[in-house]
């Protein structure tokens, strides 16, 4: 009789333990992702007259986004990203409107903080595929802060502007389960209405290298 109770108790403990075991193996038990978080490093190259203002690439950038799957292939969410551009020129010569000529070293700087509503479409490459290409677009606002300095004379401009960001990218699944992790590679085209000095509608090509977590 006692042995019967012991076996029943062990069985009950074992059965009660199964759900807990299933929860702890959330990384390995696959289920379609509902929510994605992406965190990544960004590089950016100014284009057009923004490139005339700062010709060198930005290696200071960061992005963070949250996406919720609206259907099997579409997601919507929010993205924050920041890019800092700066360049110094050892000797710049410019002609003034009064006929004068000025020569000196200059420092150009631009910070852009953007927050955008984002939408993405994911190409269906099969549930077993490691690669998931996607296309996306972001719409929102960007706070632009720019600064120019020569010797100890500096002037700055700042404002909040419109930004739109078409994007093409690829998710490379590293671990797939209840929670999945993927390498995130993407190229974005930033079009803003940010205008300052001789720059109008500052634009840039930006690359993201990040990690996406989905569950």
């Amino acid at each position: 009789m006692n042995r019967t109770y012991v076996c029943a108790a062990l069985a009950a403990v074992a059965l009660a333990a199964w759900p807990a075991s299933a929860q702890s193996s959330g990384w390995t038990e696959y289920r379609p992702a509902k929510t994605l978080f992406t965190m990544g490093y960004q590089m950016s190259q100014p284009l057009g007259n923004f490139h005339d203002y700062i010709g060198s690439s930005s290696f200071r950038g960061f992005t963070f986004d949250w996406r919720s799957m609206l259907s099997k292939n579409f997601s919507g969410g929010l993205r924050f990203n920041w890019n800092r551009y700066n360049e110094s020129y050892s000797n710049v010569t410019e002609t003034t409107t009064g006929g004068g000529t000025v020569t000196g070293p200059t420092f150009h700087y631009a910070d852009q903080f953007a927050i955008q509503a984002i939408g993405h479409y994911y190409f269906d490459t099969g549930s077993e595929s490691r690669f998931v290409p996607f296309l996306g677009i972001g719409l929102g606002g960007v706070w632009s802060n720019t600064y120019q300095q020569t010797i100890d004379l500096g002037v700055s401009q700042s404002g909040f502007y419109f930004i739109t960001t078409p994007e093409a990218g690829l998710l490379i699944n590293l671990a797939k389960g209840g929670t999945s992790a993927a390498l995130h590679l993407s190229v974005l085209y930033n079009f803003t209405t940010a205008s300052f000095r001789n720059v109008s509608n500052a634009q840039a090509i930006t690359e993201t290298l990040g990690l996406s977590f989905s569950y």
Partner: protein
Amino acid sequence: MKLRPWFLLAAVAAASCGGYDAPDEVTFGQLVYTQPAPTPGGQPSDLFKPLTSYYLDPSLEVWKDGQQQLPQALPSSTVTTITTRMGTGTGGFGYTQQTNNPGPGGVPNADVGLRLAYIQTTQAYYYNYCSIYWAYYYCYPGWAYAGSYTTGTVLVQMVGLKTIGTVVTPGKALWVSALYSVLGSAGLENAPRLTSALNQAFDQSPYLKTN
């Protein structure tokens, strides 16, 4: 697999501290501005081609924070630079130097006169760290820092001394140059930056050449 996203955030935060300030080559550089007198309908060179001689004032006007000081003698390196670039030698603009000092109130016997002024300006700065925390406005006295520095700007002026044609008249400024931040606290004793700025001023004013 244990991911530590805070490491990435910390790395980005560290990176964000960089690139904000101008490098020393900009902050401690020099700015050279030049401007000829307006020549409506003509070129700046039209103004200078008829000129043949110049007089260089050997004394330097000195101003400190808006107060005029006693004049000083031009540094020899400055005299050499100007006479070389204005003179008739190779690379010079082709002017003949007149050296007879007419004395106070007198007018030198030359087409144009060159005079330099040294303007010392003391710049004071004060930065502190203040922030709003809830409803309180805090300043952290220990974080504040203050100081001052001196910039030395040299102005160069070329003035007409005779009536030549219809444009050049006595007392008219024909060419001006501002050499910003070429002399710091060190003053005139050691003035290689003034020499290089003067050369830059002449380099960017090729219209000064005479016939």
